[in-house]
């Protein structure tokens, strides 16, 4: 048992990763959270469900993680008074998730001190909640704007720069409010939610296989991670284990996604310090990976290649050779480029010491994923909770202590090389056969399953609840950006304004992945 508490009866899920689920009363929640926190654990996700039809109440779900695995707590909340104790003082990352849970479902934390809307942006009436089953989507449109008071910093010479949500370049929308003195950043406050698309609501009317496509589009740069996490959750409910060939192929796709994204980011980081040379070189390499993806698997970004029950791709001997050649080429080229970055005084001057997140702060606020590993947060689902086939791969985790832009660059390089090694290893283990994919079409009734996959940015989690007919009642995709966006606010403090884009890019967090 990962957690022992008198009010908690955990049941092990038939999951690819070690996961447990159980219900607790609201008043026991903070105590259990504190216990996990004291044991070095983290908050992974927080979401709510409308279970009033079946059970007469709302459910709050809190996914926690400690070194033994994932624990998913279900907290029943009375329908007329859906409140629960605030846990953001234990896990600061919970703050925004609690606000989003209120916007979407109307369940709220007692004593929560930030009541500003996080996702709503005036797109529906403040008294109606889209994820409630009785929500009328046609009647609820509104143009009422939200008052969103930013925290003001006062003092002589302090002023604000509002940036976005529309930016000078073509990137995702987000608003950043800087309080600065001269060029020095005193405070940054983010406001996101501009790309809320109602993904979670959309899932409710979809079949299992349709849902896989939508899951793959939550955040396009992590489509493999999301599709795999979704498939893992569905397979966990159905109690099926995909064939080993399927799992090897999924791991291959995931590592290719990681390589492509790390190459792209390393290029962008060069571009942000005006070393366009690095930008062009890394993007030539990324383009090569994407083209090989298109040629071998039929899609440049590998969308819809992983489906519940299997994969829709295959790899023959010729394809293996292409990947082996590509790995050798990347290994050679990236080594040269890494030397250039390492030895370029101008680049290192910009990278080192910029946007530092101390390990202590990272642990306190729950920084996770690739950025977390650059601040000595040694969590990698491929290592700690190695599901098949990672249990046979012996992944070497890349960590670094400095927590600055340079550290995040180092971790990216190390992970890139490790991914190339893993791809080669997968090539050795992957057997080519023409097995037909055993697609999963239906799920058992009233099931709950959870999928956890280490995407390139961090751990991607998808939770699936099915209703009495086995249809999708609620799907919650969780992006690691939820945890990491608040850290960006801390990372820029005391840096200068022109360094923000570089720091931001070194995290490269998803907007769409958490705006949903």
């Amino acid at each position, binding site marked *: 048992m990962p957690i022992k508490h008198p009010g908690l009866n955990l049941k092990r899920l038939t999951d690819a990763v070690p996961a447990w689920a159980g219900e607790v009363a609201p008043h026991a929640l903070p105590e259990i959270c504190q216990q996990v926190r004291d044991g070095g654990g983290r908050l992974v996700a927080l979401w709510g469900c409308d279970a009033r039809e079946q059970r007469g109440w709302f459910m709050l779900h809190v996914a926690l993680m400690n070194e033994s695995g994932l624990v998913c707590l279900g907290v029943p909340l009375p329908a007329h008074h859906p409140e629960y104790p605030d846990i953001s003082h234990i896990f600061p990352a919970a703050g925004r998730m609690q606000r989003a849970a209120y916007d979407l479902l109307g369940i709220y934390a007692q004593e929560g001190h930030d009541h500003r809307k996080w996702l709503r942006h005036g797109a529906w009436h403040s008294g109606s909640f889209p994820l409630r089953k009785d929500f009328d989507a046609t009647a609820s449109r509104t143009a009422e704007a939200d008052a969103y008071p930013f925290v003001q910093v006062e003092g002589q010479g302090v002023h604000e720069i509002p940036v976005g949500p529309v930016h000078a370049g073509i990137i995702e929308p987000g608003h950043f409010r800087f309080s600065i003195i001269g060029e020095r950043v005193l405070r940054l406050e983010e406001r996101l939610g501009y790309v809320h698309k109602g993904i979670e609501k959309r899932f409710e009317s979809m079949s299992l296989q349709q849902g896989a496509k939508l899951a793959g589009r939550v955040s396009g740069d992590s489509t493999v991670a999301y599709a795999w996490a979704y498939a893992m959750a569905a397979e966990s409910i159905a109690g099926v284990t995909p064939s080993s060939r399927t799992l090897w192929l999924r791991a291959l796709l995931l590592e290719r996604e990681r390589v492509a994204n790390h190459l792209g980011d390393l290029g962008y980081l060069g571009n942000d310090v*005006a070393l366009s040379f690095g930008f062009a070189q890394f993007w030539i390499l990324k383009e090569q990976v994407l083209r090989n993806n298109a040629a071998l698997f039929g899609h440049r970004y590998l969308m819809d290649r992983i489906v519940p029950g299997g994969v829709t791709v295959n790899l023959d001997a010729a394809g293996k050779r292409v990947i082996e050649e590509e790995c050798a080429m990347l290994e050679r080229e990236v080594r040269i480029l890494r030397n250039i970055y390492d030895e370029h005084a*101008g680049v290192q001057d910009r990278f080192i010491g910029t946007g530092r997140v101390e390990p202590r702060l990272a642990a306190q606020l729950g920084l996770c994923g690739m950025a977390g590993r650059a601040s000595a947060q040694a969590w990698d689902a491929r290592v700690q909770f190695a599901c098949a086939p990672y249990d046979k791969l012996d992944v070497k985790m890349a960590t670094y202590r400095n927590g600055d832009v340079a550290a995040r660059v180092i971790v990216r390089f190390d992970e890139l090389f490790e991914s190339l090694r893993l791809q080669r290893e997968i090539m050795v283990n992957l057997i080519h056969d023409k097995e037909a994919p055993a697609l999963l079409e239906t799920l058992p009734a009233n099931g709950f399953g959870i999928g956890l996959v280490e995407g390139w940015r961090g751990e991607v989690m998808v939770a699936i609840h099915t209703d009495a007919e086995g249809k999708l009642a609620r799907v919650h995709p969780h992006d690691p950006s939820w945890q990491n966006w608040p850290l960006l606010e801390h990372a820029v403090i005391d840096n200068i*304004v*022109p360094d923000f884009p570089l720091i931001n890019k070194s995290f490269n967090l998803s907007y769409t992945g958490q705006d949903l």
Partner: protein
Amino acid sequence: MMTDYDLLFAILFQLAQLLLVVLLAPLLTGWVNQCQAWLQNRSGAGVLQPYRVLRKLFHKDAVIAHNASPLFRVTPYIVFGCMWLAAAIIPIIAVDLPFSQAADVIALVGVFALARVFISLAAMDIGTAFGSLGARREMLVSFLAEPALLMVLFTASMISHSTQLPRIVDTLAHHQFVLYPSLAFAALAFVIVLLAENARIPVDNPSTHLELTMIHEAMILEYSARHLALIEWASSLKLFAYISIGIALFIPHGIAEVGNWAGLPLAIALLLLKLMLAGAALAVLETVMAKMRIFRAPEFLGTAFLLAVLGLLIHFLLGA
């Protein structure tokens, strides 16, 4: 004694230079961009791209903020005019042009400063955070670059005992080829000033889309259509003017005399060759360097000033 005939020639030469610079300036920008593309293994948009951009911008409808004052509207014309005037003063194809008499090197620096004052005021006129941010940074960079530029020009003036550009160029061009140690230092300083004043890497990045890192680009974010076209064109002219100053001071050999029709084709061919080389050198510099933190810019420009002063001192000490 200048006859009417000579004056006519001089005016013709002046007109030729005016037309030449305004038409060639975007080509130089295109050439620099194309060289950079080649150095980065990209195919690039071609040397004619700046002309296409100008054509596109001139065909668009201008969007102007509601609270823009007339200053905002006239600034693009003033900036363009200043840069064109500067390019007219500098002896580019021939030495003794009528306009050159009108202004010496100090006035030339003043013309650049005038354009800068207007564009900074226009940037703050709209009242956006980025405009003020850019204007503030521009002032930081330019108040350090300007003295360094003056020192460079004074070093050359010392050698030729004149602040008139034609005299300076004449002196330097008609000496037999000698290496002035003072000018070598001044040349280094000038390159740094050129990078800073033209918003090039490592001080600024002309191709960035990251609004928070911008200097020059942040000031012109609010401009569109013909206004933006004029400012872009003025930036090209400024780069052309600076490179021309560099050529005039440090490699003036081969420049034509007014009235020397026979020498003109050779002068123009040599000029084009020099511009191509200078543009390629600029592309190489920009490719191998990363942008520095903005607070490094004072050190960088301080170095320029120091080098220029060293050049001046060496002239006093060695008389060369």
